[in-house]
């Protein structure tokens, strides 16, 4: 009814201060929401892109575990130093996964933590990714740039150190590491620490550096398996050799190993503590020796990149169905699971932000509602008159909803415009991450926020919703006004 639109608009103009209070609240709310959503969504996309392109691929296959497992270790409740379980029936799983038409490339990986030892000077922590250089590079061709040295060659023993790790070591210990040097690496496996000296083949930096992930270093997989004690014997259930069980049983293993009794009292027992056993415990130092003992099929993860990003969910579902059918204790998951806490960080922040928006929306609704109720009470005579003249309740309802919607839409659009302009400016200038936390969140050092259509529609939807919700109570108050009140009103 055009007359209702006329009344609504003129009333809003007539009560400028009220309209402005409500309008400004709506405009600010929408601007904040649009900006926040844009930043969050751009950041989430950035993090996703960064992880998929550089670390996780689209799909990660791992062994089934109680808690979830990421490329950076096991998540959830842990009973201490739990290792990441190996993928059972790796060959079959790899063959099936790579046979899927949706899969473009695949790379397998072993993950763990290690310590770089510098004798008395101390240790430096590092994340170690055990890879097959060729496969890994074809999977993540642009993820790293070499700052020195060269990439690992297929089958070659060695380590690629991250540039920031090298800088940290230099800063902490004054040791300058260069390609060609060797470094002592300790790995923690099911049988404790193993130490290995690895030649540094190259020093690299990630193209999209994410704080926390600059701790990643690449090691040839065979060396990493040796460091983590991923020998054939430990595949599946842990079967200890008689020498190892002997050491577990004795009260003082050190005494048993090095004490005179072992060497002096029994010649045969002394022979049992062979160089091989010692090296197995300490970690083998010479390349190639005892390689037969290391399980060449032991992998923690198979990472898959797909032809089409929209196929992630179906491929994961298909793989998990196949694992269930074949009775293989493996699991396929997406990049968020693979990235551990990093991927869900953006989600968590977004949830917190959405809760914040919800609080703002509730406060806005209460303020708007309150202002409208006052307006309804002030207009009791007018409403009563309309009812007396023959206006049905629906006419009164329409009039108030129209008023609220007019404010919401007009000021909502102003909020959208301010938000869009701000986003546009930030997109051009870039928003630098103030600290490492924001670097993770932004998926890089600078964020160029975009304005996705979904955010825009979301903002407009919220505007209309706020308008409608805020008008519910005032309208109910207006509908309770009886025509007789028109006569009583002065």
């Amino acid at each position, binding site marked *: *009814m055009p*007359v209702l639109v*006329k*009344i609504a608009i*003129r*009333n809003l103009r*007539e009560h400028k201060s009220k309209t402005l209070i409500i309008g400004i609240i709506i405009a600010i709310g929408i601007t904040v929401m649009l900006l926040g959503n844009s930043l969050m969504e751009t950041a989430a996309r950035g993090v996703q892109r960064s992880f998929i392109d550089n670390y996780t691929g689209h799909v990660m296959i791992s062994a089934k575990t109680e808690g979830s497992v990421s490329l950076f270790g096991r998540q959830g409740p842990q009973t201490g130093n739990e290792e990441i379980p190996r993928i059972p029936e790796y060959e079959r799983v790899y063959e099936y996964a790579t046979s899927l038409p949706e899969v473009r490339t695949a790379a397998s990986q072993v993950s763990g933590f290690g310590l770089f030892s510098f004798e008395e000077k101390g240790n430096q922590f590092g994340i170690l990714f055990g890879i097959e250089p060729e496969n890994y590079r074809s999977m993540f061709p642009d993820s790293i740039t070499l700052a020195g040295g060269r990439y690992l060659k297929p089958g070659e023993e060695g380590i690629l150190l991250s540039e920031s790790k090298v800088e940290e070591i230099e800063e902490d210990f004054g040791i300058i590491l260069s390609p060609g040097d060797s470094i002592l690496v300790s790995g923690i496996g099911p049988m404790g620490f193993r130490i290995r000296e690895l030649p540094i083949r190259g020093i690299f930096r990630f193209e999209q550096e994410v704080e926390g992930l600059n701790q990643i270093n690449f090691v040839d997989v065979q060396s990493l398996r040796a460091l983590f004690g991923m020998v054939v014997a430990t595949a599946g259930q842990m079967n200890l050799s008689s020498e190892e069980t002997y050491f577990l049983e004795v009260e003082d293993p050190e005494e048993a190993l090095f004490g005179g009794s072992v060497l002096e009292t029994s010649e045969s027992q002394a022979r049992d503590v062979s160089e091989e056993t010692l090296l197995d415990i300490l970690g083998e130092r010479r390349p190639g020796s005892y390689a037969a003992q290391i399980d060449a099929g032991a992998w923690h993860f198979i990472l898959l990149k797909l032809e089409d990003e929209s196929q992630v969910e179906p491929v994961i579902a298909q793989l998990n169905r196949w694992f269930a059918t074949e009775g293989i204790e493996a699991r396929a998951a997406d990049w968020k699971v693979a990235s551990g806490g990093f991927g869900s960080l953006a989600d968590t922040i977004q949830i917190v932000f959405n809760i914040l928006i919800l609080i703002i929306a509730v406060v806005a609704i209460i303020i708007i509602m309150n202002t409208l109720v006052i307006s309804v009470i002030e207009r009791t*005579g*007018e409403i*009563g*008159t*309309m*009812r*007396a*003249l*023959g*206006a*049905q*309740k629906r*006419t009164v309802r329409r009039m108030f909803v129209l008023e609220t919607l007019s404010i919401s839409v007009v000021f909502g659009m102003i909020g959208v415009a301010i938000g869009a302009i701000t986003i546009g400016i930030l997109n051009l200038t870039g928003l630098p991450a103030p600290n490492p936390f924001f670097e993770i969140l932004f998926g890089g050092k600078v964020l160029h926020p975009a304005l996705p259509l979904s955010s825009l529609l979301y903002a407009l939807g919220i505007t209309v919703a706020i308008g409608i919700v805020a008008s519910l109570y005032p309208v109910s108050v207006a509908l309770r006004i*009886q*025509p*007789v009140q*028109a*006569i009583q*009103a*002065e």
Partner: protein
Amino acid sequence: MDIVKLDGVKKVYPLGKVTVEAIKGIDLCIEKGDFISIAGPSGSGKTTILNMIGCIDKPTEGTVEISERCTAEMKDKELTSLRHEFLGFIFQSFNLIPVLNVYENIEFPLLLGKNRMSKIEKTEWIAYLIEEVDLAEQRIQRPNELSGGQRQRVAIARALATKPEIVLADEPTANLDSKTGEGIIELMKKLNREQSTTFIFSTHDPAIVSIADHVIHLHDGLVVEEQRRQRDAGTR
């Protein structure tokens, strides 16, 4: 023909823990085309009677019939339609819609409910009413730009917009000076003659009462006297 019929009407209002009997039992018949004044001091029940005839209040006891329709069992929606079709209202405080101008205020009732007039008819009818109440020059002015007398004239034109059978006016002159008040009543009487519309108005001003053809005197919720004067020659 009785256009309004009140039969044994009582109205009791709760006031805290006690009840107040505003109307103590009234029987009343009003003929079509009457120009009738309900007179009495404050608190005599004038407004209550008008509210019940105007279908904006219901009796506690007894029945009210408007154009032979009993209002007792009607729902809010039906009562609203009845008000729109049969009744026009003139309020003591004018009660114009402040954001609409003179023309729009008069037009407003015509925009509610069913459209019985074409757009041209509507425009001509509003123009005629504006002429009748002598507000042609103020047609685009807002209520706050008008004097009290002008506002009440807008209210009279608005009350007649839907061509109702009955126009109810609750103390229409109470907020006006006596000269303007008399002018308003004269205007109502003129329209009563021209349109054959029944006018029922309440007042406690003897000067205004004297203009009415039919006067009902109320006191303490009861009719104490009913006077019928001969209508002016040529009324019908």
